[in-house]
């Protein structure tokens, strides 16, 4: 049962972490507004789910919204900062997070909400495991997302351009790739991943102001996996989810908050570029 719960949680963590990674790869900026995007998307999903009975439609709407939001934040706020220090861009994302948080609380008052979702039943599996249909769907969606991203990076033109930009932005620009466009799209996809994660969080658990804490854990996931490695988020998500849940279960539940950061510190000390990240990444920041 615990294992099943870890798997589901790891899926969501991986999804959240992938958002960081996609954005980081394209623009070398760590998006500190991620938590707030998750919150905002979650609340939007709640409102839409109430308004539109068909869940898939509301999910699609949330994803589109997040994509457009990501693109526009990049175009309006991040792009003008090109050439400034990385620090400015990071603090800018923090400020954007603060602003989005204010918007979220203004509109939804920061209450804890659950996304009403019609297709929910429980399945009993051997080994005394009981999982809801949503949890199965979550795992399916996360797998699908990773598969899509893999195919996208490998086979589509934009995906290939994105990889080129991640490898060497200067060279990519010289080869005629519009790195601003590519980064904008990456921000859109990263935000959409956050929106998807928010939706899954909302139907599995709940949306609240505290959801930011989960996004922070995901941020740890991205770092442990390697900031420039999408694949790295998967094992990292499992590590974080497992240690966190096991600590809560068998040790001090209070340590659950701190344990991801202890692991992160250890990774930073001994393998700062992450599990599957590239070592050169360290010098780029």
């Amino acid at each position: 049962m615990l294992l099943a719960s870890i798997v589901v949680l790891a899926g969501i963590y991986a999804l959240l972490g992938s958002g960081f990674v996609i954005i980081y790869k394209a623009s070398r900026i760590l998006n500190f507004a991620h938590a707030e995007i998750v919150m905002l998307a979650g609340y939007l999903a709640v409102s839409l789910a109430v308004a539109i009975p068909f869940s898939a439609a509301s999910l699609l709407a949330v994803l589109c919204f997040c994509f457009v939001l990501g693109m526009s934040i990049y175009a309006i706020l991040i792009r003008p900062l090109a050439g400034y220090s990385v620090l400015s861009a990071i603090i800018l994302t923090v400020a954007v997070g603060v602003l989005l948080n204010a918007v979220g609380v203004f509109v939804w008052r920061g209450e804890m909400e659950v996304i009403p979702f019609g297709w929910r039943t429980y399945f009993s599996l051997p080994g005394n495991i009981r999982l809801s249909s949503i949890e199965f769907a979550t795992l399916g969606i996360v797998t699908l997302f990773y598969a899509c991203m893999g195919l996208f990076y490998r086979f589509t033109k934009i995906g290939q351009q994105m990889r080129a930009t991640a490898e060497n932005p200067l060279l990519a620009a010289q080869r005629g790739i519009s790195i601003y466009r590519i980064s904008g799209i990456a921000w859109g996809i990263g935000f959409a991943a956050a929106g998807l994660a928010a939706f899954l969080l909302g139907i599995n658990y709940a949306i609240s102001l505290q959801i930011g804490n989960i996004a922070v854990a995901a941020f740890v996931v991205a770092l442990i996996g390697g900031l420039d490695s999408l694949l790295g988020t998967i094992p990292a998500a499992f590590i974080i989810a497992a240690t966190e849940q096991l600590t809560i279960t068998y040790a001090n539940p209070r340590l659950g908050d701190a344990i991801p950061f202890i692991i992160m510190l250890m990774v930073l000390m001994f393998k700062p570029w992450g599990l599957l990240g590239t070592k050169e990444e360290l010098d780029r920041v």
Partner: protein
Amino acid sequence: MSDHKILQYPKSPYLKTSYYEDTAIQAFDTPFRKKCLVIGLLFWVCFPFVASSYVVHIANLSAIAAIGAMSLNLLIGNTGLLSLGHAGFMGAGAFTTAIMTVQFGLPIWIVIPASGIVGALLGLIAGLPSFQLKGIYLGLSTLAIHHIIKYGCSEYQYYGGFGYGIVLEAPSLGPLLLAGKTVWFFVLWISAFATALLIANLLRSKPGRAWSAIRDRDIAAEVSGIDIGFYKILAFVVSSSLISMQGSLYAYYTAVVSVEEYSFGLTVSYLAMIIVGGLGSVLGSFLGALLITALPYALIILAGLVDLSFAVKEHFSVIQTGVFGMVVILFLLLEPLGLVEIWRRVRCYFELWPFSYKPLTIIKR
């Protein structure tokens, strides 16, 4: 006779005749500036007696914030090391204070240096990853340390049995009971000025130059004989020890210590202060701290003028948060050098008036 007179330079504040004179902080050298200093000092002494205690409270919070902003600025603006864990160091200082006063009943003049030492030790630990980490990676390691400190503090608060926070009694410094906004006004502002002087001194001597060198070009700094590992850690130690002492002052001033207070949001507000004020500038830290601290209160006063409806009041803190975020974004996009640059421009305008161009060679400053 007349020759002699011509040769004797008029005693001008712009003319320095020794290097010793030139190393002084040149903020109060001209007669006009000296007058400003005197008027400013008079205003400062009279301020807490003239202004309402509400405004004094805001001024006190600004002084605390200024210390924090200066210490963070020392690290980020002057040394170029990112720290996202300063709220943690501040919390460590506050909890050291709480433990030492509530548990052991130690006086303030022991507690504050002790908090400084605790902060310095934590800074040492936080600085260790700076050997191999740069930029955002270093920021993340300090964020991790922040969370670990927070965990430790919450454990203490729990096992100490302090539900909603640890309440401190007003400390006394010798015969003087440090209670009331007016007394604290002087304590806090003198601390802030002392910190400013300390940091300004460090910046114009060997360590400060080494830090700036590391910020600008670390390899060149190393080749010039700077032990960059040592100086990075030194920056962390100085910065975290200062903010830890500031946390201690903050704890005494608000008289309640609770772990929820020292969240990442606090770090964000300090980051905002130095961004808005101006990176790497002591004056900028002051200006930023003043603006960011006074902002929510200014909005409250503004709202009081127009007598907003209850429905708006209900959303008021959101508006405060939103304005805060907006101010930071606007500064980053429109004036990345911060308030201190605006101040410089204004001063430049007055100094050059009636001319409109800067001199080709700026000999001064």
